[in-house]
């Protein structure tokens, strides 16, 4: 479960005030809203990358409001993939596991499992340079899922992809969410993406956040 209660975040001149939302455990939550309304800031707040000034963030049954990003157990996929240019795809998938002190054979087994699930086994020895947009997002997703987080935060992961790749990754996200049972908070502009993936949809505007009933999601407009 992802629960935000009266969360306010100050980011420079920009301020998000009193945001509350709940995504039940194992559900796929979509957050929509106009450019500049603070969607990414909110996601960064959930991940611990922006300091929350008031309110509480609960993940599962833990209050994580004051925890460091690495202690929250969130897999984060940013908009631009943000792959590490000096690491191979294998090293990306192994990174969080090495940080946690896993033994090499256990890491190798987990990387194999992830790579075959995401269809990137043939890329393991490649560096990010020269990977296609879809491949990069698969690697970024694998990196985020590697340590089996219960929560996945995705910041417009499909926005830089062409139409076909977008559909492909969309299906992959739905499958990953179903098989791993993660609770997802996914930011997007695209109503089609929302209707394909969402169990619950929220719209953020300059002052407030509102839940949009699913049955009307076909008519979501921004």
């Amino acid at each position: 479960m992802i629960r935000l209660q009266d969360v306010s975040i100050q980011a420079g001149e920009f301020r998000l005030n009193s945001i509350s939302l709940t995504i039940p455990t194992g559900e796929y939550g979509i957050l929509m809203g106009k450019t500049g309304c603070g969607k990414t800031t909110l996601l960064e707040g959930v991940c611990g990358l922006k300091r929350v000034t008031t309110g509480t963030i609960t993940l599962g049954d833990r209050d994580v409001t004051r925890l460091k990003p690495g202690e929250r157990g969130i897999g984060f996929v940013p908009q631009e993939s943000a792959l590490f240019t000096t690491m191979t795809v294998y090293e990306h998938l192994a990174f969080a596991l090495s940080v946690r002190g896993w033994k090499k054979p256990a890491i190798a087994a987990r990387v194999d499992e992830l790579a075959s699930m995401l269809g990137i086994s043939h890329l393991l020895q490649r560096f990010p340079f020269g990977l296609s947009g879809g491949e990069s997002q698969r690697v970024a997703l694998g990196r985020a899922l590697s340590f089996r987080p219960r929560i996945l935060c995705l910041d417009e992961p499909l926005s830089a992809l062409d139409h076909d790749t977008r559909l492909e990754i969309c299906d992959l996200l739905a499958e990953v969410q179903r098989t791993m049972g993660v609770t997802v908070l996914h930011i997007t502009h695209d109503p089609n993406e929302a209707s394909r993936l969402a169990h619950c949809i929220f719209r953020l505007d300059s002052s407030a956040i509102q839940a949009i009933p699913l049955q009307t999601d076909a008519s979501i407009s921004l």
Partner: protein
Amino acid sequence: MNTDVPPDESSPPHRAGSDVPFFAGLLLLSGVYVFLILAMVLANTAYTSLDIFARTLASPEIQYAIKLSLITCSITTVLSLWVATALGYCMSRFEFRGKSLLDSVLDIPIVLPPLVIGLSLLILFRSPPGIWFEEHFKAITGYRITYAVPGVILAQFMVACAFAVRTMRATFDEIPARREQVALTLGCTRSQAFWSVSLPEARRGLLVAATLAWARSLGEFGPILIFAGATRMKTEVMPTSVFLQMSIGDIESAVAVSMLMILAAMAVLLVVRFWGSESYVR
């Protein structure tokens, strides 16, 4: 002629004038400077000969100066890299009160006349805290700072480090902070994210900063002259040799040492050009 009337189809088509004067101007202004640079280097090369070169290199004083230059420049470079990485990272990643003031402070060694840096250092080490520090430094290491080799290193460091800081800041500016943030969400501490993600990505910048700091310290003269002196076989580095040889009228030797420095500078340029512009491909 009435300019309000639009041209009809029968009027002659517009002719744009020639671009030749523009390009001629560009060529002339750029050419003069490039010509001067090359002519200067060529003149220096033509003035010396292998014999003079060999004779100069055989002199124990010059050998000492070359050795001291290489050692002090390398130490200065290592010190500069540590400080520049820390400062460049702070300036690139964090917003804090007084940041623009700090930015201006970091420019002081770049804009101050070199002699003034040497003089200021000397005055600092003649003040009570400076004397106290030098006494303790001598008690621990056995070396004085002023008019001694540590003074040469400090004088080089004061200027070279400022250039390294600029380079490292630009390097970290080019590396998106997002990658480090992702590393944080993956379980890293700030320090782990820095050492495993940001610093490896900054390695080309590190090499360029090291090369610039090394080259800058190799050419440093004014602050060393004032702060560390120009004593033969003691604080004489290569620029000091040029100065001392010139002052005793041995222009040939001065030119030969200059040639060595030109060669070193060219090697530095090649490294910066090669590593500074190559896109990361593996």
